[in-house]
């Protein structure tokens, strides 16, 4: 039997009613091994206005590059606030295999849901100054001048900034996946 996947529809403006029961902004309990990282960012639309009605979900491996491990599930969900901001506290993932048996650079997969999007946007967060970024098979698919939009920036406090720009200058790279 061959079926076709159900058509995607927008989460609409009232997504919080259904999705905020499972907000997970702190992914790593005390004791989970790995380098602690705080990632925050802002979503802005084509007019530069903050998107205050979005949900951002992340999916990542543990510090050893394993997905879905006991003690570290690797799933997070944040809802943007009035300033369009989302935030996660997690650990830096290890490297996982990519195409052609090459290891990928550490990265976090991102699904973004909001009113005005009939299906989720897909992106990735990479880590600044990671020596593996240069050889990452997925970053290599991205036009060089746009790659920086996938790499978080280190702030003075040591946390990471990763903004989602929906349109215009520095528009974030989104994937067809």
């Amino acid at each position: 039997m061959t079926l076709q996947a159900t058509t995607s529809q927008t989460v609409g403006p009232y997504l919080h009613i259904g999705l905020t029961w499972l907000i997970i902004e702190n992914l790593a309990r005390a004791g989970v091994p790995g380098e602690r990282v705080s990632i925050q960012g802002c979503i802005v639309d084509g007019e530069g206005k903050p998107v205050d009605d979005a949900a951002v979900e992340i999916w990542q491996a543990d510090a050893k590059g394993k997905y879905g491990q006991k003690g570290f599930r690797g799933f997070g969900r944040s809802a943007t606030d009035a300033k369009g901001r989302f935030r996660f506290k997690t650990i830096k993932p290890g490297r996982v295999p990519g195409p052609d048996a090459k290891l990928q650079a550490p990265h976090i997969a991102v699904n973004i849901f909001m009113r005005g999007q009939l299906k989720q946007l897909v992106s990735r967060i990479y880590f600044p100054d990671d020596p593996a970024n240069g050889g990452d098979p997925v970053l290599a698919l991205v036009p060089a001048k746009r790659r920086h939009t996938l790499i978080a920036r280190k702030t003075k406090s040591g946390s990471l900034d990763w903004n989602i720009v929906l349109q215009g200058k520095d528009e974030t790279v989104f994937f067809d996946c």
Partner: protein
Amino acid sequence: MRNKVTGYRRPAPGTQPDYLFAPYASTVKRAPTQPLVMLPHTLTEATGPVFGHDEVKPGDADLTRQHKAEPIGERIIVSGRVLDEDGRPVAGTLVEIWQANSAGRYPHRVDQHDAPMDPNFTGCGRALTDKKGRYRFVTIKPGEYPWRNHYNAWRPAHIHFSLFGPAFVTRLVTQMYFPGDPLLERDPMFNCVPDERARNRLISEFDWDTTIPETALGYRFDIVLRGPAHTPMER
């Protein structure tokens, strides 16, 4: 190191929406303008979170028993199966729903529609599918409501669904509609894809078998998540 990761099928043409769809006005300032980058399915995309019974309790699937009294409205049973594109049941997956009350109002600060709130209805539920991929919710039929997309715009009655499936790429958010709703033909969201059969699969079926005598009418809504590509991708 050799790893074989089974990727997931790409959608059939015309069955999934584009990001920019001008009749739905909010897409205009929110859709990407640069080309999407085609992403091969690696272990990252082919795996996904698993949720358990510690998070979802049986009572979470009954939206009529979350407050002191029952909500106002027509009680309904919404049930169905979650399958993949090969027709195999997707077991143990999380299904989240949310919806307006029977008057077409959401308990949300953004909703300014002049219709009564119902203190006995939040409109949020969740369930895990069983071994056969089945889920079942008890709720009330949501009301239609106006929105400001265009002049005299009304949303057909609908229930929002959010599903995970086995992988990052099987994540799906959709909406379930009701049969015979005259607003469907004018709704930009429902009409966001050209494939008429795909659109019509968003409409639930009246289901005599799940109707409970003297209690509630049944509606059936089966959901299909992306299935594995048949040839494992060599890695």
